[in-house]
């Protein structure tokens, strides 16, 4: 979830992320990582002579600017734009994920060597990195972060999940200045613990261990000191106007240091001359992030050039050229730039509301009805239509793009529920529904037996569902209208209600109560325009999303078999456990799957080489260089 907070998580997490939105916000998360994404495809950039130096201007997502600098991010500010466009440029996480085009552990860019497991003891050995103030990045810095998590994680850490990190850690200690040892509470899968727990750690410098400008503290050694330290740092971190001048944030171990900020949200980074990590011989020297009020404004600047032209930006989907068959992108409408589609490591879906207090809970709980509805989602048409040919068909709970070893052989065969209204009709008819395309389909054979509608559905119950969605995302609105139209062919009434991104999130997170205290809430389906990002929990095990009672299990789906299979994925390092779980859940359809839209259609100027993109949306502009 975590980074998913942008996509979702608790309501508090989302608010901070807008972001937006989002694509809200939010739409937000989407575009951002533009840079990281833009792989130069055999272009002119790779054929010419690299030169050192130069400034790169980079378009931030529309209506989104970083607003929190402290890499131990509180729920209100947990977002991808804060992490990828600010924090990770300055402060590097202990383990870096994104190996080329795959979401795997990148051992070269990690601050530590791969963890070593002996039963339930995990040993982390640090590489010889240094902070910009000359201090080594050492075991104390890891302990500082861990102690803070133990002290305030449950209340103030945006990626906290009850029962997981650090609840599943029995003890943590410093073995030497370069070695930390943890004892974990259960026989967890090594890959899960590395990819979903250790992935969250960002070492913090001693210079931050204080409760005021002149009052040092000792969170590094005393967990009890950490709450006050967090309170101080949290207050400082949320005030962007002081970021550049504050001595706190000047101590960095990443390749960049923040040298400029203005009230519009423009950020200027200059290369950290004391960076101790790997750096190519030729690279840019300054990186500027520019804010935009809308995608149209960004696209206008991208096209027109002008006083401050964009080196890396994005193409709004509505302006995207349809790619010819087999090609990843179409003819680039912006001369002199290279176009690349970036897909995020995640899934795209619309959750059902399984809340037993809901009037249609009986309907939503029927697996055959969910399968019938999925058969009415024409993913291919959405990709070809509103998404202009950019998008990936979603097949189940594990991301389909990029193709990883996590995807089961069965999922790799393709969409198990391709658009098929006839099959959907047959499913409904064979379960006692009177399919009435001219009206509203209703149950005429109530009961639990074969050929009957199923438990909780009374005679005459109409197949009518309310779907609340976040407005402002053109392709989502088109896709939903298409779904409504497809459903109406079988007399299924889907009523659409558009709200702002924040309002949808507020309604779906907490609006239906808790797994033990349900409240009636006015939706059976909810679409905030995005889905779930498997960042910074990079292993797609589903424990945060589909397990009974999980905080991000918005629809309150509950299935004992699913819970048991998820538990297996957390214990077993074998891929077979994950395949078994995903093949089971793919048939259960706890959510309605929709196509995965590109996170960004990245445009980079032809004279700039920006390396291979990462589906984790992290970016490494220190590797970028101009060519002559």
């Amino acid at each position, binding site marked *: 979830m975590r980074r998913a907070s942008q996509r979702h998580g608790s309501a*508090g997490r989302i*608010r*901070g992320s*807008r*972001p937006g939105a989002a694509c809200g916000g939010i739409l937000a998360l989407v575009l951002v990582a533009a840079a990281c994404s833009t792989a130069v495809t055999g272009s002119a950039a790779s054929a010419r002579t690299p030169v050192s130096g130069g400034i790169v201007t980079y378009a931030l997502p529309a*209506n989104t600017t970083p*607003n*929190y600098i402290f890499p131990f991010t509180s*729920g*209100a500010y947990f977002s991808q734009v804060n992490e990828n466009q600010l924090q990770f440029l300055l402060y590097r996480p202990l383990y870096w994920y994104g190996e080329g085009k795959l979401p795997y552990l990148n051992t070269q860019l990690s601050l530590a060597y791969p963890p070593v497991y002996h039963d339930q003891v995990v040993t982390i050995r640090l590489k010889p990195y240094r902070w910009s103030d000359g201090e080594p990045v050492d075991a104390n810095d890891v302990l500082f972060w861990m102690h803070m998590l133990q002290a305030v994680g449950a209340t103030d850490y945006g990626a906290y999940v009850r029962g997981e990190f650090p609840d599943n850690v029995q003890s943590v200690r410093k073995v030497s200045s370069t070695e930390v040892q943890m004892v974990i509470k259960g026989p967890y899968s090594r890959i899960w613990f590395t990819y979903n727990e250790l992935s969250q750690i960002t070492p913090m410098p001693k210079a931050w261990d204080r409760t005021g400008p002149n009052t040092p503290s000792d969170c590094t050694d005393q967990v009890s000191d950490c709450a006050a330290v967090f*309170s101080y740092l*949290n*207050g400082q971190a*949320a*005030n*962007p*106007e002081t970021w550049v001048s504050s001595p706190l944030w000047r101590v960095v171990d990443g390749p960049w240091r923040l040298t400029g900020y*203005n*009230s*519009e949200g*423009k950020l200027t980074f200059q290369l950290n001359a004391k960076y101790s990590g790997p750096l190519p011989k030729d690279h840019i020297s300054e990186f500027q992030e520019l*804010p*935009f*009020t*809308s995608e*149209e*404004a*960004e696209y*206008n*600047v991208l*096209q*027109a*050039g*002008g*006083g*401050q032209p964009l080196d890396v930006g994005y193409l709004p989907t509505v302006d995207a050229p349809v790619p010819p068959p087999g090609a990843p992108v179409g003819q680039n409408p912006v001369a002199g730039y290279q176009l690349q589609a970036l897909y995020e490591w995640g899934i795209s879906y619309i959750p059902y509301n399984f809340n037993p207090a809901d009037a249609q809970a009986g309907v939503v709980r029927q697996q055959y009805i969910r399968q019938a509805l999925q058969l009415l989602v024409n993913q291919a048409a959405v990709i070809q239509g509103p998404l202009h040919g950019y998008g990936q068909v979603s097949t189940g709970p594990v991301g389909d793009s990029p193709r990883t070893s996590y995807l089961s052989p069965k999922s790799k065969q393709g969409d198990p529920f391709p658009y098929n209204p006839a099959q959907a009709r047959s499913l409904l008819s064979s379960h006692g529904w009177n399919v009435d395309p001219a009206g509203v389909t209703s149950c005429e054979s109530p009961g639990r037996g074969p050929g009957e509608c199923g438990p909780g559905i009374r005679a005459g119950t109409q197949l009518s569902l309310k779907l609340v969605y976040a407005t402002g995302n053109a392709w989502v609105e088109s896709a939903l209208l298409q779904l409504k139209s497809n459903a109406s062919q079988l007399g299924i009434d889907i009523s659409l209600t558009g709200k*702002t*991104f*924040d309002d949808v999130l507020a309604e779906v997170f907490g609006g239906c109560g808790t797994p033990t205290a349900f409240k009636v809430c006015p939706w059976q389906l909810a679409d905030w325009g995005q889905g779930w990002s498997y960042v910074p929990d990079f292993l797609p095990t589903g424990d945060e999303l589909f397990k009974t009672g999980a905080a991000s299990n918005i629809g309150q789906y509950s299935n004992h078999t699913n819970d048991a299979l998820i538990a297996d994925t957390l214990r077993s390092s074998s891929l077979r456990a994950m395949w078994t779980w995903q093949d089971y859940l793919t048939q259960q359809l706890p959510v309605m799957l929709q196509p995965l839209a590109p996170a960004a259609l990245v445009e980079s100027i032809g004279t700039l080489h920006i390396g291979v993109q990462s589906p984790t949306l992290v970016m490494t502009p220190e590797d970028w260089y101009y060519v002559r």
Partner: protein
Amino acid sequence: MIAYLVRRIAQAAAALAGVSMIVFASFWLLPGGPRSAILGGPLSAGRLSALRRDYGLGRPVVVQYLSWLGQVLHGNLGFSYVRGQSVGSLLASSLPRTLALTLTATVIAAAVAIPAGLAQAARRDSLTDRVLRGLSYVGYGMPSFLLGSILILVFAVRLHIFGAEGPQAPGIAGVLTDWQDLTLPVLTLTVLTVALFARYVRSSALESLAQDYVRTARGAGADSRQVLTRHVLPNSLIPVLTLAGLSLPRILGGALVVESLFNIQGMGWQIWQAAQRHDFPVLLGFTLVIGAGTVAGSLLADLGYAIADPRVRYTRS
């Protein structure tokens, strides 16, 4: 005149007090009350103490209002926890941009619309009048995003004469001196405003031309130019003053569509963002400033009436 002036200032002061009370009451009317409205998230001890300090929560309502008003009068309009910035700072960065955009457009529009409206009235139903009327219909009916997009496509993307985005330099001086980037957003707003103003001026001038004092002036030997400039123009300006007064909320509140299209973080865009994110301190702070500005502007417009038309002050006194 002095009595009229005093009375209008007193009325404006009362209106300002009313605006401040309505804005203050909004904190309590919003879902979740003032705490959730202002903070928009979980309360930390630091935030809670800041809230108590700024808004006097926990004390009688009158005391809270006076406490808040005291903060406002000292320039503290609150803090946006969504943006991590003070409302005053957001205002300081967005108001100059908006004023540079809307005020410039309004002034240029008035400078173009007044002579154009007079010319139309003087040559009623002539080819000039018909052409200008047609153009004003087109300008009046054209959505600003369409006009702005056309201007960007032609002058920024194709011809590279002007910038595709508004000025990004800080401060009003930086904005006003960046004419290359300011031209297209101002032009977009100007075209729309000219269309509106010109119709008012034409209609008002036609009415003036039919008055007895115009016939008298003509009978006394005044030529057409003298009639228009000395007799028709002053009387035709009165509705323009009204229109200018009515434009004040727009001038201060910004032009959301144009700002969004031209990447200008002005008042309109900020308010829209705040509404989307439930950033109530920004919404309320900006509303207060726009309300106060509108009241002050209306006062100036009324004073302008009194100067332009003595009947106003005599009638009201």
